């Protein structure tokens, strides 16, 4: 038998190659799981469509003319779809730990030689792809069901803006992903609290201007504020990518990813110290 060279050090190119394969592995695993849980996913999609319909139907009871009603329906629909999109990103990234713990694979994944940023970004990449497909299906189903008239929607710009906003969403998701690591019992639920708080201050179904002053200030640092504002303009008026929406998202993204990684790293260290990095917590 040939002796393995344990002193071998990998070149940067080899490390990069291995990290990309690791990232692909995370996305691939999630595709496998989606295929295996397809019926569950379909049921969840139907629930999201029904939930979005309950919001959009509010516009029918407001008692305004057809044009104003159509505009209100579209605004509520964009809010509902972004809520669903953000929910998926938070759910998938936050469950990086919770899902692995539930399946019992957490120790194997965390002892593998892939870097944590690649692991988390892999989860984020899958979440964005899956979330976009799901958001498109919810949007199309509600538009068809209610019969909303969209004059000149700019879908390309809307998807591009959501893509840019996703960088920030993933960064915030990484921060909440640490919660199940630190608190196995309550961590996942706290992640949902963070998602809800972000949307409350971002004007999900109403203009930010109706919020109390301090909430309006918080809205300025929430990426959902700019995604909602931009997407509404793009779907209602066919606007393109507005720099006023893009630059805040780029700035928030540039901060949120490193902060998210640092928070997760600190949480992982805490979990390793306290012995929480195991299947039973």
């Amino acid at each position, binding site marked *: 038998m040939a002796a393995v060279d*344990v002193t071998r050090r990998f070149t940067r190119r080899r490390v990069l190659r291995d990290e990309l394969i690791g990232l692909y592995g995370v996305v691939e695993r999630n595709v496998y799981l989606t295929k295996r849980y397809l019926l569950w996913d379909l049921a969840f999609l139907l629930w999201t469509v029904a939930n979005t319909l309950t919001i959009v139907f509010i516009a029918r009871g407001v008692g305004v003319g057809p044009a104003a009603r159509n505009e209100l329906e579209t605004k509520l629909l964009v809010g509902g779809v972004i809520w669903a999109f953000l929910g998926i990103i938070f759910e998938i990234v936050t469950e990086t730990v919770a899902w692995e713990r539930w399946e*019992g694979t957490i120790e194997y994944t965390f002892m593998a030689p892939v870097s944590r940023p690649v692991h988390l970004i892999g989860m984020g990449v899958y979440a964005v792809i899956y979330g976009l497909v799901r958001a498109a299906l919810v949007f199309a189903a509600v538009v068809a069901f209610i019969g909303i008239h969209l004059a000149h929607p700019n879908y390309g710009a809307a998807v591009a803006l959501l893509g840019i906003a996703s960088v920030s969403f993933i960064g915030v998701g990484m921060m909440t992903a640490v919660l199940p690591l630190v608190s196995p019992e309550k961590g996942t639920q706290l992640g949902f609290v963070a998602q809800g708080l972000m949307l409350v201050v971002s004007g999900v179904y109403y203009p930010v201007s109706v919020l109390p002053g301090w909430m309006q200030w918080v809205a300025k640092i929430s990426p959902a504020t700019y995604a909602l504002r931009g997407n509404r303009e793009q779907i209602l008026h066919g606007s393109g990518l507005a720099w006023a929406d893009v630059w805040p998202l780029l700035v928030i993204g540039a901060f949120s990813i490193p902060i998210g990684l640092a928070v997760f790293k600190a949480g992982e260290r805490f979990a390793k110290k306290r012995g929480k990095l195991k299947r039973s917590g």
Partner: protein
Amino acid sequence: MVLRDAVLQQAAVSVRDLEKGFTRRKGLTRRRRAALAGVSFEIARGECVAILGQNGSGKSTLVRVLSTLLLADGGQVRVFGNDVFKEARTVRRLVNRVSVEASFFKKMSAAENLSYAARFYGMGPRETREQIPRILERVGFPSSRRGESMESLSRGMQQKVALARALLTSPVLLLLDEPTTGLDPRSKQEVQAFIREIRATNDSTILLCTHDLQEAEQLADRVGLLDRGELLFLEPVEDVKRRYGVDTLEEAFFAATGRSFEDEKTEDDEDREVFA
């Protein structure tokens, strides 16, 4: 050449004064229990060492420290000269493990679970397409069942896939944490036979943690006894028997600890079991 010889002579595992404790809350009080209390030992390259101990003795804590999943309170742990705390990523490339629970994504198939594990070790789709059927065949897993979900497989079959997962990454240090616990006698024999085959064919150093005295005696070059976080001995089986003047490892356990291997646990032991 000199460097290569030095590496070959270097200990595969070197543990010095390893300490790890856990705090458990009980009502308003907190109890600190030592899972590992100043453990020291070395394992030579290519050696198979068995660590015996009851539940809560600290075996799994030791495996989790070597797997880079736990940070120690004190001491030094090196795997092929690499510090497991400071050079965790280098250590991770060298180590893999099989634990008492098979631990897979239950809805995914054996092949999908193995692909997922392999990607984290830099194995691309082309490589796994060739390697996975080969490795599954080697552990005696029927190739016709590699597309079935893990939840439809027996415990014995799942454990074979767990062995395949560990071997797929060609680890030079293989950590086996009670790999045959809960298996039926036939599956247990198959897994043990495969561990012997790994020793004969791979450049692997093996640390086997078990509470099966017979298994330890059959598979290991040296046997250690971890009791309440302390390593009482680590020697070849015959030396252990000679030291205590006994005929069996069970008698050696009694002589070393003053307790029977099957004795009931104290409250302290139960506290320790939660973590260790």
